[in-house]
């Protein structure tokens, strides 16, 4: 298909060395890091040349192993070797219907579940951060210095809790997270953009632990996500589990220990992968009890035992199409993502549903990381002239508030384009009521009990009035990462009470700082030096952005204003050369304040440029 072309960069040499930007696919089973090198997106392998990093973290008493280094402990020490941590992100113990399938000692804490390990209690955020840190180090070694920014991908169907947890993990790993990007969108970006790619595409993403189906429209360099649907608890691992259950039945073995379970799950995965290219596969295993399993699984039988899993992907496909108001025939192509899409029964089901064979031109395991790298490259400012495209994404689940009777009032419907800000007015129901409890939920169901609770907070200081007289305006704002903040304000009397919350499962900045310090205390890295380096990178970024703005729109400023900004820049420059990171951070903040008014004028100019001076019809040629 013509879509599959990676755009070449501008021929003109860049005026400055390109910034170091990476895209990270933080997967359930494997993770990858990629970058754009000389205009070509490439996956960065480890020192042994392996592109994947198994998403495995082993906690020893005296240290941590990540990836291949943790593979052996998988069987020997399953309780302290964390796999599929992505399934735990932003989840409480009660959310995990399959908690018993994990061999860990879970600790049920409000918000997010924790795991008791040989090295102490760990949150899923900390475990993910270990994986991200390993990838960061791999990228820094390969690119020769500190990273300027990273884009981390998440399943499109991740809710706010899962997104917040992922972003926190990135920060904890010392990454400047430029954006959380939906995996299917990243895949579509990797497939490239040119005029021939105009049309509507579906991305079928069956990862290790999650399934996503997204409908994207490409037109004139704008990527629009029309709809997304999926299942956060369905993936390639479930196919392994079906094979595992089949092995237990066929081999007539009794209850198995955690380490034998791990062994058999690995055998199951091998069998599944074998069946992609073979009509049958032998399965041989000796358990710690001395029992043996010696069986042959045919491709036919595998299709039978996994048929319900394949069927489960059809529901979200229909739902996404319905939301986008499209029929399968209107889809121009289906992009396949995730190693699990290699299974012939998946290929067949997708081909039957859409009436055309799916696209497999790129490695389904790398495509997400490659797309994330392209987006990171653009966001960090390494934009080439002909890569001038824009991504307009949507939120996957409706956001709302609890109202009387435990019902959910939707404020932002699912598939709304982000960023989005929406407000709704509520009133008091008792005379003299001075406080109001606000409960923020996410989900499609009518009853609050069936939706996911994101946050609770109280708006206090409402002036005492008769019931129904106060007007409380609740505003939901979702940023380009799909992250929500909520504020509420009473507006009749001019008495303002406003509060902004971050949903409660997210980690407070102080927690992040503490965890960072703890992790640095254990590591050999020099924390102060690292913090200074980060502050210097940030300072350089802000100065470059400001100078660019001055060059483009300096005429918006009076001489005096310009001089003030110039002196703020000079201060930042001077301090960036020294080693006082606190003074440097203060100077950068001062520069931000000094440019506030300027930024506002620039934004207004930008908007009027887009709207005036031209016939509306001519915009169609943009």
């Amino acid at each position, binding site marked *: 298909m013509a879509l599959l072309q990676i755009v070449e960069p501008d021929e003109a040499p860049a005026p400055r060395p390109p910034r170091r930007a990476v895209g990270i696919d933080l997967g359930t089973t494997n993770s990858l890091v990629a970058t754009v090198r000389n205009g070509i997106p490439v996956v960065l392998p480890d020192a042994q040349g392996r592109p994947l990093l198994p998403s495995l973290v082993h906690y020893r008493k005296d240290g941590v192993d990540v990836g291949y280094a943790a593979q052996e402990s998988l069987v020997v020490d399953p309780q302290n070797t964390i796999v599929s941590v992505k399934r735990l992100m932003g989840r409480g113990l009660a959310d995990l219907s399959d908690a018993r399938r994990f061999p860990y000692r879970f600790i049920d804490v409000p918000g997010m579940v924790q795991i008791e390990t040989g090295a102490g209690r760990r949150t899923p955020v900390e475990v993910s951060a270990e994986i991200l840190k390993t990838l960061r180090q791999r990228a820094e070694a390969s690119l020769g210095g500190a990273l300027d920014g990273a884009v981390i991908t998440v399943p499109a169907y991740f809710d706010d809790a899962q997104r917040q947890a992922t972003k926190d993990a990135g920060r904890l790993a010392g990454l400047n997270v430029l954006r959380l990007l939906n995996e299917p969108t990243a895949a579509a970006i990797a497939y490239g953009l040119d005029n021939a790619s105009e049309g509507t595409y579906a991305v079928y993403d069956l990862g290790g632990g999650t399934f996503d189906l997204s409908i994207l429209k490409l037109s004139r360099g*704008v990527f629009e996500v029309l709809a997304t649907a999926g299942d956060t608890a369905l993936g390639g691992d479930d196919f392994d589990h079906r094979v595992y259950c089949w092995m237990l039945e066929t081999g007539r073995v009794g209850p198995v220990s955690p380490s034998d379970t791990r062994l058999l799950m690995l055998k199951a995965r091998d069998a599944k992968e074998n069946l992609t290219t073979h009509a049958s596969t032998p399965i041989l295993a000796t358990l710690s009890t001395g029992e043996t399993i010696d069986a042959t699984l045919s491709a036919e039988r595998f299709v039978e035992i996994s048929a319900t899993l394949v069927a489960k992907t059809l529901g979200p496909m229909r739902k996404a199409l*319905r939301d986008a108001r499209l029929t399968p025939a209107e889809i121009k192509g289906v992009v396949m993502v995730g190693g699990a899409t290699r299974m012939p029964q998946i290929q067949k089901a997708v081909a039957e549903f859409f009436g055309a064979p799916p696209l497999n031109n790129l490695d389904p395991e790398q495509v997400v990381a490659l797309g994330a790298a392209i987006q990171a490259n653009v966001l960090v400012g390494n934009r080439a002239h002909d890569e001038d495209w824009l991504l307009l994404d949507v939120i996957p689940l409706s956001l709302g508030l609890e109202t009387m009777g435990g019902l959910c009032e939707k404020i932002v419907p699912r598939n709304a*384009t982000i960023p989005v800000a929406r407000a709704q007015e509520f009133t008091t129901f008792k005379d003299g009521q001075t406080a109001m409890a606000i409960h923020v939920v996410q989900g499609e169901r009518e009853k609050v009990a069936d939706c996911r609770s994101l946050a609770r907070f109280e708006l206090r200081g409402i002036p005492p009035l008769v019931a129904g007289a106060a007007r409380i305006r609740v505003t939901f*704002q979702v940023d380009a990462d799909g992250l929500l903040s909520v504020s509420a304000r009473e507006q009749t009397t001019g008495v303002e009470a406003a509060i902004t919350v971050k949903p409660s499962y997210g980690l407070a900045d102080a927690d992040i700082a503490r965890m960072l310090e703890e992790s640095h205390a254990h590591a050999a890295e020099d924390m102060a030096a690292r913090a200074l380096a980060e502050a210097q990178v940030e300072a350089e970024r802000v100065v470059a952005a400001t100078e660019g703005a001055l060059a483009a729109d300096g005429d918006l400023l009076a001489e005096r204003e310009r001089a003030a900004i110039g002196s703020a820049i000079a201060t930042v420059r001077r301090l960036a050369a020294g080693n006082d990171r606190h003074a440097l951070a203060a100077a950068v903040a001062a520069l931000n304040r000094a440019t506030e008014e300027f930024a506002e004028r620039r934004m207004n100019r930008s*908007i009027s440029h887009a709207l005036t001076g031209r016939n*509306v019809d001519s915009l169609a040629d943009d």
Partner: protein
Amino acid sequence: MTLDTLDAAYRALQRRVHPDRYAAAGETERRLALQSSARVNEAYRALKDPVKRAQHLLSLHGIEALGETDTALPAEFLQDQLARREALAEAQSERDSRRLAALLEETRSEIAGLEAALAEHLDAQHALDAARDTLRELRFLTKVAADIETALAGIED
């Protein structure tokens, strides 16, 4: 104004104000981009939706369409909808997703017809009262379509 020109204007604006354009900029600019981009999205949503757009245009002429008392509908229309509601209830109790999908298709095509009529009333004929009547029917049908979608989703879950 056609949907194509609206789309083009929307994209041109987002190209300028979207937060991705300011990812490497300072904090202030990032915040402004977020706010501006959200406003553009809201404006686009209002203009793209034929009901909201018509409501807006009518309000410019002092007509508050779709208010609490603005509910009168022709008897014939109501009868059709009653029959459709019955079909919906039946299909739902029989968990017949194929029939529901057909009902949805049919309702959506009627909605498309009404939307075209609405544009004709407003843009070509300036027939404000007719537009107001069409709006009521549109609102009714939109609710029906949403209910069918919910029923479908309920079965597929």
